[in-house]
């Protein structure tokens, strides 16, 4: 008989004794896969939405220090930078502080912030589907800020207290009603944690009022807080950075800013990796033990196979092939279980608002490369675990193995 058909026949007839190993290995695969699928999806959500698409291709330019002589970030700068080669877009950000007052009393001090399509915040709840661009008088609040839980105010009218310039060093508060049109995940740190998004006109109005400048030409006289220059390709970034700095803008790349996943997902990811190691070792040790025990029980069989003319290599190959088949079955089972586990895990995580945007797909499917490498790793680990005991068994002389007389 050929090696694989005999291995298959053996695995089938020994299936009851192999169940334990299959359960162990498939559980290991399932848990790892579940963790990988969930965190993989979350990672790809952040990656796709932000990292790869724009943030990694972006430069940010901050408003110059007063008296530094560096150019202001005006509407003209936006045009000038937009004309540089290999620039995809130039986006601006303006912030103006305001105090939030709700029906429950004074809330946190927030920064009204203009929305940049290249760096959209992860919106958790909103009053309508296409939230951006915001209308005048609308704000999008962080889910939490300065100890205040703001998620509950969705759709409600609140008051924004802004400052109007009176004279140098003195201002007066002005109350203005605004509507909470959306809530975003407060772990989003790109525009600082206290950012509240508002329509451009609203932010300009508040910023101008605060500085005592007319809103009409505020963007030419004072300018934006920050510009984001998005290059066409990530590889264009260094050259673009040089050109922007040549024009005396204080530019930095955004790349390093965005690495963090929400804490719980980071935890799952680290746990998944730790589990992978632990379970890998477990699967290996399990295989060594099971193969060793089976090989001892089957020494007679090994002897018989050698006695009827199989070479040592064949017997070794047979024992390893059997375990590889077991591993393959366990891997398939583990993948099915793992997808189920990931689905259940994602459903559980969706109940946590800050994690929700990252696990929105119904079934987080791990990427093909993860699947294939995990399955391959399973087979390799199990086969490697089987090797030493199998070699010991296969090397025995037939008579020694059989103890025939």
């Amino acid at each position: 008989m050929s090696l694989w058909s005999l291995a298959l026949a053996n695995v089938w007839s020994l299936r009851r004794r192999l169940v334990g190993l299959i359960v162990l290995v498939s559980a290991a695969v399932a848990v790892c896969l579940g963790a990988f699928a969930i965190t993989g999806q979350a990672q790809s959500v952040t990656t796709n939405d932000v990292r790869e698409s724009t943030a990694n291709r972006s430069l940010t330019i901050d408003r110059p220090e007063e008296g530094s002589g560096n150019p202001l970030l005006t509407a003209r700068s936006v045009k000038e930078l937009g004309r540089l080669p290999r620039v995809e877009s130039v986006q601006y950000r303006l912030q103006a502080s305001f105090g939030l007052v709700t029906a429950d009393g004074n809330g946190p001090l927030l920064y009204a912030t203009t929305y940049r399509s290249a760096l959209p915040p992860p919106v958790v709840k909103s009053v309508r589907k296409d939230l951006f661009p915001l209308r005048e008088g609308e704000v999008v609040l962080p889910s939490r800020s300065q100890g205040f839980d703001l998620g509950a105010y969705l759709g409600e009218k609140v008051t924004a207290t802004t400052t109007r310039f009176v004279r140098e060093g003195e201002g007066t508060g002005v109350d203005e009603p605004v509507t909470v049109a959306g809530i975003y995940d407060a772990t989003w740190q790109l525009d600082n944690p206290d950012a509240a998004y508002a329509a451009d006109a609203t932010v300009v109005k508040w910023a101008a009022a605060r500085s005592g400048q007319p809103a009409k030409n505020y963007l030419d006289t004072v300018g934006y807080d920050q510009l984001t220059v998005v290059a066409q390709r990530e590889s264009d970034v260094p050259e673009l950075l040089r050109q922007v700095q040549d024009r005396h803008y204080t530019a930095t790349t955004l790349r390093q800013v965005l690495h963090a996943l929400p804490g719980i997902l980071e935890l799952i990811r680290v746990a998944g990796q730790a589990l992978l190691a632990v379970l890998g070792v477990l699967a290996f040790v399990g295989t060594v033990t099971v193969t060793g025990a089976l090989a001892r029980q089957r020494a007679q069989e090994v002897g018989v196979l050698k006695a009827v003319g199989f070479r040592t290599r064949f017997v070794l190959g047979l024992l390893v092939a059997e375990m590889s088949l077991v591993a393959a079955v366990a891997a398939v089972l583990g993948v099915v279980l793992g997808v189920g586990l990931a689905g259940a895990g994602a459903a559980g995580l969706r109940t946590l608002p800050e994690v929700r945007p990252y696990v929105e797909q119904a079934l987080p499917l791990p990427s093909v490369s993860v699947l294939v490498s995990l399955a391959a790793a399973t087979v390799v680990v199990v086969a490697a675990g089987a090797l030493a005991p199998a070699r010991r068994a296969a090397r025995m002389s037939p008579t020694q193995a059989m103890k025939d007389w």
Partner: protein
Amino acid sequence: MSALLEARGVSKAYPFRGRSVDILSGVDFSARAGQLTAIVGHSGTGKSTLLHILGLLTTPDLGGVVVDGTDTAGLGDGRLADLRREKLGFVFQSYNLLPQHSALRNTLIPSVRRGKEAQDRARLLLERVGLGERVDHRPAQLSGGEQQRVALARALVNDPPVILADEPTGNLDGESERRLLALLLELAREGRAVVVVTHNPAVSEAADRVYRIADGRMQGPDEQRAEGPDERRAAGPDEQRAAGPRLRKEDSR
């Protein structure tokens, strides 16, 4: 007459409590095509040891074994395994079937053929040993005698020129014993060298030659049959092996 299997000056000792115990010393042996050769002797005299040496399962301390013209001295494990597979069919004293597999698969396992051809041959052999109805039974579901016959079918699956059987009639009743003996003789008459270790007088009487082991020494062989070259039996149509001589039974001693 050609010796298909030959042992020359074979010695074997086993270590026991720090001492070396000689089991076989300087044993010569040969088995010829077309003959049933018996090895007899008291229990513990080394019959199984010799058969295992002849079957290339154990290496002798001294001396060598020649199988179908191939001197096995100094051959590597792999080559020895190949010879076992192609030239030797071994029927063990305790059958040594694989417990998890059916009679059919047990027969099939050493087969060098593949697929349907192998299946057909295995079925044919099981029918020949009278187990056509038991092909799907596992060893635990077979009697000792039936397991013995599965072991014989397995030994025949690659149609080896040499068959070695250790106490093949050990667990059989009179009728089964007679049938097995007839089968062994038939296999010999088809041109194989059939070697049996036996305590059974019926077997040694039916054998063409008998070796006796006592005190580690070999006596014999006793030729029990006159060779009648004019009484050759033609080989069967499916067994094209050179037919051995047909032998007339003379008075047993």
